[in-house]
Structures are given as structure tokens and as C-alpha cells.
């Protein structure tokens, strides 16, 4: 595995003994996780187990401080890179709560982002076509491109916009943070199908979710269970079904002694 140079060899994304603190409180306490090319992994776990912390830390949010461990993306340690550099390397985060940016028009923002990701200008016409086609796929109204980024969007619109960005930026490694939360059944189906359409032999995905229902559409190759800042279970798709049936309690009961007093960790 050592010596992978970002071409084809070795796993796509490797997290080793990752410790992350938020405002001085340790949330991740040694996460180990490997995502291979073409793999979709589901990351599940009760509230406060550290799922969103992992997502934000991987993308380099300044409030999430890595105190120990590494994250290698195609062999390169990305934790020393600025957020925008990570994104240009092909890492993507679909936000749980995308923030509004008043006055910034969606279409302009998306074009700027695609340009940054590709490292070259995108002709207006070509971009327009790409945008129209992708929005069509996600059943988004064309007027969407003229609105301000995430401003006044409904929950469903926000999540669609995240998947739209993922489709346009074509990341090699995507982390989706509860992209299924706050959606009604129809919106969930559209968003999930949009995600599933982005599966590819070169692309890895880490899909953070609480519920089985998203995984009915996006069938995971691997299911990981995070609890109290560590991955405590790894299994196949059947593990998600088991969790759905039994709830998180059996995990909680099994691991609670080790995590005494930490059950109310940050999200």
C-alpha cells in the first residue's frame, strides 16, 4: 500500500487514527477507515457520534482541529492543504446545512467552481448546456440558476443543489453529510437517484446517514458504524438493515462503558 502515487495503485482514501477536537473538546478519538475506488460506503451512527465532525475535518473547516492522525487521498496527505486545494484535488463535501450567500447568483458561483476545479475556463455555452442537463436530471427548475446561493431555498432545494454541485464538479471522493435529512419521499427519491447516478469505478463515496431509507436507493458496498468518535463496526449492506431493525441501542449498550459521560458529544 505504501508508495501509492495517486494513479491507480492503492486505496483511494485512507483515514488513520484521526483525532479531531472542536473548541478544545475531543470528538474523534482515532478513526480508521479506508474507501476504495468505485466503493460506496455508508457511515452510520447515533447523534453525537462524530459523523459531521469527520466530514468537516476532512474538508478542512477551521473550527475542527486535527490533533493526531492522517488522511491520505490517492496517497497524498491532504490535512496540510487548504480547503480549496483539497477541493481542487477532487474531494467534495455535500453539506448537511448549506449556508446562504446573499447576492451571489447560483449560476455564476457554479461556473466559478467548475472553472476552479478544472483549472481552466469553461466556455459559457458549454457550461450552460452542462448545467441545464444536470438540473434537468435532478428535476430542478431552470430559474434555480438565477437565484442567490442557498438563499430562501427549501430543505429539498438545498439538498438538490448540493447534489447538483457534486455532479458538476465530478469529485473523485465525495463525502455526503446527511443529504437525505429533511426531505419528503419524492425529494428523497430524486436526490438519491441523483447520487446513485454518480457512482463510478473511479469514484469513492462516504454517505453519512441516520436511516436505511437512502440506502434503499444508494446501495452501499460497506457500512461503517461510528460511535463515540471511533468506528466500532464494519459490515456489508446487511449491517444497515440490522441497525434499522434493532436501533442504535445495542451499539450504545455494548460500547457505552468505554464512553462513559461522552454520550452527548458534538454532532
Amino acid at each position, binding site marked *: 500500500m505504501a508508495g501509492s502515487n495517486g494513479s491507480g495503485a492503492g486505496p483511494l482514501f485512507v483515514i488513520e487514527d484521526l483525532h479531531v477536537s472542536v473548541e478544545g473538546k475531543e470528538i474523534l478519538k482515532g478513526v480508521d477507515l479506508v474507501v476504495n475506488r468505485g466503493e460506496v460506503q455508508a457511515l452510520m451512527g447515533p447523534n453525537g457520534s462524530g459523523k459531521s465532525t469527520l466530514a468537516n475535518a476532512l*474538508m*478542512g*473547516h*477551521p*473550527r475542527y482541529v486535527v490533533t493526531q492522525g492522517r488522511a491520505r487521498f490517492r496517497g497524498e496527505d491532504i490535512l496540510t492543504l*487548504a*480547503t*480549496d486545494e*483539497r*477541493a*481542487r484535488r477532487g474531494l*467534495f*463535501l455535500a*453539506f448537511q446545512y*448549506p*449556508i446562504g*450567500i*446573499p*447576492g*451571489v447568483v447560483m449560476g455564476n*458561483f457554479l461556473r*466559478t*467552481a467548475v472553472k*476552479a*476545479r478544472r483549472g481552466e475556463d469553461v466556455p459559457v455555452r458549454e457550461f450552460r448546456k452542462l448545467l441545464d442537463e444536470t438540473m434537468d436530471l435532478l428535476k430542478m427548475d431552470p430559474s434555480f440558476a438565477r437565484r*442567490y*446561493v442557498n438563499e430562501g431555498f427549501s430543505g429539498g432545494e438545498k439538498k438538490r443543489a448540493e447534489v447538483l*454541485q457534486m455532479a458538476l*464538479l465530478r469529485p473523485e471522493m465525495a463525502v455526503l453529510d446527511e443529504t437525505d435529512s429533511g426531505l419528503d419521499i419524492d425529494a428523497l427519491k430524486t436526490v438519491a437517484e441523483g447520487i446513485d447516478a454518480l457512482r463510478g469505478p473511479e469514484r469513492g463515496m462516504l454517505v453519512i446517514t441516520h436511516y436505511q431509507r437512502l440506502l434503499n436507493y444508494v446501495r452501499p458496498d460497506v457500512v461503517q458504524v461510528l460511535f463515540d468518535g471511533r468506528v466500532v463496526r464494519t459490515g456489508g449492506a446487511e449491517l444497515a438493515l440490522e441497525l434499522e431493525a434493532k436501533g442504535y441501542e445495542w451499539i450504545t449498550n455494548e460500547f457505552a462503558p468505554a464512553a462513559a459521560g461522552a454520550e452527548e458529544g458534538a454532532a
Partner: protein
Amino acid sequence: MVTKAKDVTSEAGYKYGWHDPEFKPVNITKKGLNQAVVEEISAMKGEPPWMREFRLKAYGHWLERPMPSGFWGGNIQNYSLDFNDIYYYVKPVTEQGKTWEEVPAEIKRTFEKLGIPEAERKFLSGVEAQYDSEVVYHNIREDLKKLGVIFLDTDSAVREHPDLVRQYFGTIVPPNDNKFAALNSAVWSGGSFIYVPPGVKVPMPLQAYFRINTENMGQFERTLIIVDEGADVHYVEGCTAPTYSSESLHSAVVEIVVKRGARVRYTTIQNWSSNVYNLVTKRMAVYGDGVGSWVDGNLGSKLTMKYPSTFLLEPGAHGEILSLAMAGAGQHQDAGGKCIHAAPNTTSVINSKSVSKGGGRTSYRGQLKVYPGAKGAKSTVRCDALILDEASRSDTYPLMEIDEQQVTIGHEASVSKLGEEQLFYLMSRGINEAEAAKMIVNGFVEPIVKELPMEYAVELNRLIELQMEGAVG
């Protein structure tokens, strides 16, 4: 990663700071101000006695009035403005040009660099260019002249339309209004005079461009705009100056009369170099069903104290103030506006956006006054400030005096730091920090910028980008 903003002086982003070394003024008064200087200015202009009297009286007010303090003003007393170290009148040419060919080459070159002749050809109804104390170029489209539209420099208007000027001059901003209005009234020179006859709609903006060239110069233009019933005009002013180590003073007075059913928009893109004190009094009187709006963009200067005012004097009058301020290192933009409701069913909107960075300071200072009996008055005041780094500052000073019960008043204010979450979001899409910050700032000011004609919106966005260069990361 989010890094601390560097200390970038605004000169770094200021592209208009050259001066014309070959320029030799035709005439210049001695530094400093006294009665003889006031008389000399009046004599050089060959003015009628009533204007000479007006100046001398105003000079008396200037001597008596203290520097502004208390609620209005940005602590001018703490600055080193020295009235004795200023040239009050610098005459650049003997004759005003009607074509650009008639303008001396070195001066013409300056305005070409600023893109004025080109803008005139493309999208303006008329242009005035003032260089130091006098207007060096003036032109208005022939068809508008035939419709009776008057667009002149104010000195020419005193000679050519004395009755009209005398009827309104100093009535909206009295000479004793404040120290700087008194100063302007004593030593004023140049500025625009506009008269639009009833029902005439001027199709494209009239533009004035004010350029200071001489070091330690005081520019005191005086503008008077009278828009008759049902008429419509948009006036735009731009201003720049060389970057000198010593200070210059710009102290204008603008008076506007908006008659019944008329519409006026006055747009300012103020981009003085950061050695200029910009202390300006602007006021308009709006009559029945008239609409008066100020679009006030302040990007340059060392200290700006400017609160464009709208007096709503008859039922149905509407006033708007859209204020945009950006302050970088060594700058204080003390801006805002006043809306005075003095009649029933009058409406007003104040919308202020300010951005401070690199140790700059912005203040919103505004007054909303509703007189007793102004039933049904409606007003919305909104001021938002964006602070880009720890060294910068923003304050909001709203003054509300509502002396009538039956009114609808809304007031909202927000101060935000350049959002870490917004930056993170944009950067997570591969956009670098500087570009992300620029996008956020441009988005923040968009509600004001979109009110401008396209050409000016582009110009303003470009100026903001220049100021933002090197601001972050």
C-alpha cells in the same frame, strides 16, 4: 485556511493617483482663507453684487461656526485638517471647452485616462468635467437643449440665468447650515446647474466628473438642480484625485428641487484618493408625488462626512437613500442619510451597506424624522455592515424622531463579520480564499449595485475588486 488580513493601504489598490506635472494653473489664490481671498474669487469670476454679498455673509458664518461635533460628523476635530494650508481657488484654464479638442492636452489626457469622453459618446446625455476649481469641458446633447433642458456649470448659470439661480441658490442648504456649507458658500466654484422643464424626461444620465490635481487643493463645487413638474433626470457624479502625502479638501454643496410628480436620481461614485477630506452637504426638497433618490457610493477619501437628505414636503412625496461605503486602511466613511417627513402619506426608504477592511472604519449615521400631522407616513430603514477583519470597525448611529402616531416605521440593522461558514462553503468548491471573499463582498453590496445603470454597476464592481485586492489571504 482563513488567515489574518494583511495591512494593505488603499493606495495599493488606487489606480487614479497620478497627477499632471506639466499642468500650470492660469491663476491661483494664496494659501489660506480670509475676506480678501473671498473677494478675489468673486472678482476673478466677475460676479454680480448679490453673489459677492452672499459669499461675504457666508464667510462670516464660517468664522463663527464651530467644527461639527455632537451627533453629526466623524470626529473631524481629531484630524489635522488645516484651513490655512489650502489653496481655495485654482483656475486651470482661461476658457471652458465645448469640444474635447478645446481642452488643454494635459488635462484632456487625464479625462481620457478616466474614460470620460468615451462614456460621453456611448451612454450619456451630457457631460461636465471639472478640474480643480473650474469646469474645463461642458456639453449637452442638442436635442435636449432644444427641449429647454439647461445643463451648465454653475458659474455660467449665474451669468446666463441669474433669476432662476437667485430664486433657489442657498434656499435648500442655507449658508449658515453648518461650517462646511458656510465654507462652500463663501468660496464655491464650478459644479453643475440643471433645469429640466415640465414634463421633459432626460433619457440618459447627465454626468459630472470632478478631478482634483493640485496638491493642498480645496475643491468647492456647488450644484443646483431644479426639476420641474413631471420631469425626470438622472445625474451621476464621479470623483478622483492624485495620491499626495499632504491633504486636500473637497467640500461641496448640492441643492435639489423636485417639483410635483417629478423624479430625480442623484448617483455618486466617490473615489477620492485617501488623502482627501470629503465633507459634503447634500439635500433635496421633494414636492407632491415627486420621487427623489440618492445613490451614494463612497469608496475613497480619508474622511467622508456625508448624509444626503431628503425633505418630503407635500403628500405623496417619496424619498430613497441607497448608501454604499467601503473603508480600507486609514479611511473613515461616516455616511448615511436623512429622511424628513413633513407631509401626510409621504414614504421613504433608507438602505445602507458598508464594508470595512484593513483597519478601515465605516459608520452609518442616519436620521428619520416624522413631523406631527404627517399621517400615513411610511419608512423603512435598513443598514447592514460587513467587517472583513479584526482590525476594522463599524458603527451604527440611527436617530429616530417620530412625532406622529399614525405611521409605519421599520428599522433593521445588522453587523456581520466576513462569514467563516460562507468562506468555507465557497472554498470547499475549489474557489480560493481571495476570490471567495470578493464574491461574498460583491454579493453583499449587490442590492445597491443593481440599482445603477449597467455601465456604472460594472465600474463600481471593478472599484470594489481593486479595493479587495490583497485584502484577504
